[in-house]
């Protein structure tokens, strides 16, 4: 089921100031995909989710789920949350403490007045799906965090909703459990043909789970793309910086050459992935630490020079963090962070040369 959001705005008023929680958001969430809203706290991602589900009322715009308009300012349509037929997993899970697991999961079917036998059968099926068979009689208060998460998922799925929404569902779990649950969730959702909207501020979670990511900032959607596109090929500096660690260097475009864009910057002349930026204009060069390759021994052959972007620098600090060394390399006034093999025999003050693959030299808007 596709979700279309047109010109949705939401304002909060506090101490005489207007805060734009959502600022004219336009977005189409494709059907049967896992779509993630990613952004720092206060970027409006949870507000957008709550507008879709109907727990918040926008101040302007229109929201359609499939062919139904569920909210429209102009047409004066407002479908209450209980009539939207969605499923949602809350950040706190919101497992009702006065009911057992069965009643929690059966609730959406009970309020739809389904026959008892069918309810029992569907609850059993759903619990089997989330691997919680045999927990029917367990009181809700006797569940661990991971079990609560599964019960919440079962409750959201049991009525076979058109869309399932997740509001930071893993943030209450400890680090190890979070990783396991993330993999499980991906597996569960992969088996279902369902549109999933997932809100998180955790970039690893977003990258690992999603088919598609929308990065939000200050109530607006900055960029939408696949995890690979967002990570390797972002158009915006904010997105490149937010999605992972990045070295950001000011640069000036000087030429277009052989399907590459060439810039001048603090590292010298660098050949980058192609971008449609006019020659002479300013841009930001973005290099991920894992793509800085230290070259040992002789400098590479002169013929390869343009393709390899060879740069000379000096090691300023060296920190052992387990699987790699995190190295700060000084090049002129620029400082670059690099991750290199732990068995590299380097020490502070050494001169090094490194290469940058043009495919991983990303130019983003300032």
């Amino acid at each position, binding site marked *: 089921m596709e979700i279309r959001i047109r010109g949705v705005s939401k304002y909060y008023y506090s101490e005489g100031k207007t805060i734009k929680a959502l600022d004219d958001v336009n977005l189409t969430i494709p059907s049967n995909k896992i779509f993630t809203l990613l952004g720092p706290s206060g970027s409006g991602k949870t507000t957008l989710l709550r507008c879709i589900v109907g727990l918040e009322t926008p101040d302007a715009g229109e929201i359609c789920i499939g062919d139904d308009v569920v909210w429209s300012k102009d047409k004066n349509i407002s479908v209450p949350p*209980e009539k939207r037929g969605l*499923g949602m997993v809350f950040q706190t899970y*919101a497992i009702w403490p006065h009911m057992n697991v069965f009643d929690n999961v059966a609730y*959406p079917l009970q309020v739809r007045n389904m026959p008892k036998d069918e309810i029992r059968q569907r609850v059993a099926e759903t619990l089997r799906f989330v691997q919680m068979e045999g927990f029917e009689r367990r009181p809700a208060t006797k569940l661990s965090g991971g079990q609560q998460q599964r019960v919440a998922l079962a409750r*959201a799925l049991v009525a076979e909703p058109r869309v399932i929404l997740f509001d930071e569902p893993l943030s209450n779990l400890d680090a190890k459990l979070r990783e396991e649950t993330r993999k499980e969730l991906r597996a569960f959702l992969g088996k279902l043909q369902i549109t999933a909207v997932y809100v998180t501020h955790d970039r690893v979670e977003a990258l690992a789970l999603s088919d598609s990511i929308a990065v939000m900032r200050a109530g607006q959607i900055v960029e939408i793309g696949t995890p690979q596109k967002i990570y390797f090929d972002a158009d915006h500096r904010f997105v490149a910086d937010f999605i992972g660690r990045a070295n950001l260097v000011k640069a000036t475009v000087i030429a277009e050459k052989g399907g590459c864009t060439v810039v001048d910057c603090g590292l010298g002349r660098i050949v980058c992935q192609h971008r449609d930026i006019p020659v002479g204009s300013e841009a930001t060069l973005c290099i991920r630490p894992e793509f800085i390759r230290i070259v040992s021994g002789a400098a590479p052959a002169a013929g390869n020079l343009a393709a390899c972007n060879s740069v000379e620098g000096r090691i300023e600090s060296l920190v052992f963090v387990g699987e790699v060394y995190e190295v700060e390399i000084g090049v002129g006034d620029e400082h670059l962070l690099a991750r290199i093999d732990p068995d590299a025999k380097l020490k502070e003050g050494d001169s090094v040369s490194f290469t940058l693959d043009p495919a991983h030299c990303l130019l983003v808007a300032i």
Partner: protein
Amino acid sequence: MNSSRTKLTWLLIAIVGALTVCPVVMLVLGSFSEGLTAFGHFTVDKYVAAYTDPGFYEVMVNTGIFVLASSLLSTLLAIFLAYLNTRTDIPFKFLFKIISIIPMMIPHLLFAVSWALLLNPSNGLINLGLKEAFGLDSAPLNIYSMWGMILVEGLLDLPIAYLIIAPAMASFDVALEESSRVCGAGTWRTLLRITLPVLRPAILAAFILGVVRSLASFAVPSVIGMPGRVHVLATYLYEMIATGFATDYGKAAAVGMSVLVASVTLIVVYRALTAESEKFVTISSRGFRPSVIELGTARMPLFGLVGLLSLVLIVLPVAVLMYTSLVPYSMVPSAKAFSMMSLKHWSDVLNDPISLLSLKNSLFLAVVGATLGVILSVFVAYVIVKVKTRAAGILESLSYLSFSFPGIVIGVGFMWFFVQTPLYATIWALLLGYIATYLPYGIRPMSSAFIQIHSHLEESSLVCGASPLTTMRRIIVPLLIPGIVSGWILMASMFVRELTLSVVLSRPGTEVLAVQILRFSEDGLWGKLSALGIVMILISTTLVVMATLVGNRFKAVQG
């Protein structure tokens, strides 16, 4: 949605404001008036008369001694018991839990009466026993004195002081003590230099609450102080309005003003201290179990002391009342006494029209008052917890104001109010007064019930497809019920035994249990008093036991 919430908030502010501020305003106005019937002619005569009365200063001195000494006694005993329970290997620790709950079961009035039955100079059981045993001519002990009042009031305030000090001591970070020991200080020096100073906010809070409670206390001063002509402010006020022919509500209001001001000030200090004490606790608690101090040879004697205290606090009052209700007149327990036992006092009481009326009135007030009080509390708690506006803050402060009201003083304020209305001398006057004074006791369990209901629980029901009405029926109400039930029982058990407000507001036809018991005590009808008292304890205990059971289920739900 928002506008209806705002309307609800202001409506509640109006109701709660009327209930709590009205008696205070009437007290102030009354203190400047010439008399109950001459309301509106303002004068300062009453203040001049009240504060230049030579007898007043003796009362002030008595009050000071009584209040400070009994609070000191209860605080010291509470520190001692809390330390033994949380920090030592003393056996049978469940006794401490019992000591902290019993005052809920045995009304203060009956506790005071049972001590009078034991230690009064003319026929107190212990005095009679001592006289027989040693062939004395006169009674060796006299409870009708300042020391008697201090002892009984101190014991009565002990549980509340314990409930404040024990949790603070339990969450005390033991590393603070250990580092003192490592620095070379012994157990005693560590206790005096580290433990007690760190616990100072909690100890001070317990002391101040003791002061407020003993200042408002009427049961002990009237049962034990008045026969010995030891007057404190509460009984001084009572004599002004309830005995003799020249009742003077204006002068009573003028005196009451200073009690009220002192009480409100102390409660403000108390709330500041408990906030500070919680800060202390949160900073220092890191989940360590405090190390247990081995008492060694002192273990059994100290336990004996605790056992004696619980005997004195729990068993003795009930046993004495039971015994007195069965024997024809005061006599030392003996074969003869047991052979003369009969149910005469019981049948007298159960055939006494006024006693039956008071029983009926008290039950009515408990059931209707608690029901109305809880309904009001549900709305107030909802606004305090779920509506976080400035108006909601005002409502919170208003609703906790009555926590500091000394019953007899606020009763005088209500008197000034009700005399102007047709409610005067009706049971509804008592009902309104009870709800106003005990509202905080209803609001507290309700607020914790509301805090438990995270908004996600409500929202997820809506998302699941339930209508707001279904959500209310299946999610919100079931989650609130334990709070509603325990709030109702708490209020009802307080209303059954209410004395201080009732002695002012109760009139012929609107007698309540506690007032009737006080009358019996004033007339020396100990047998009837005991029978009626046991009835009161039974009702009260049943309610408290129900409250505990519901509370336990509530905890189970919270997990």
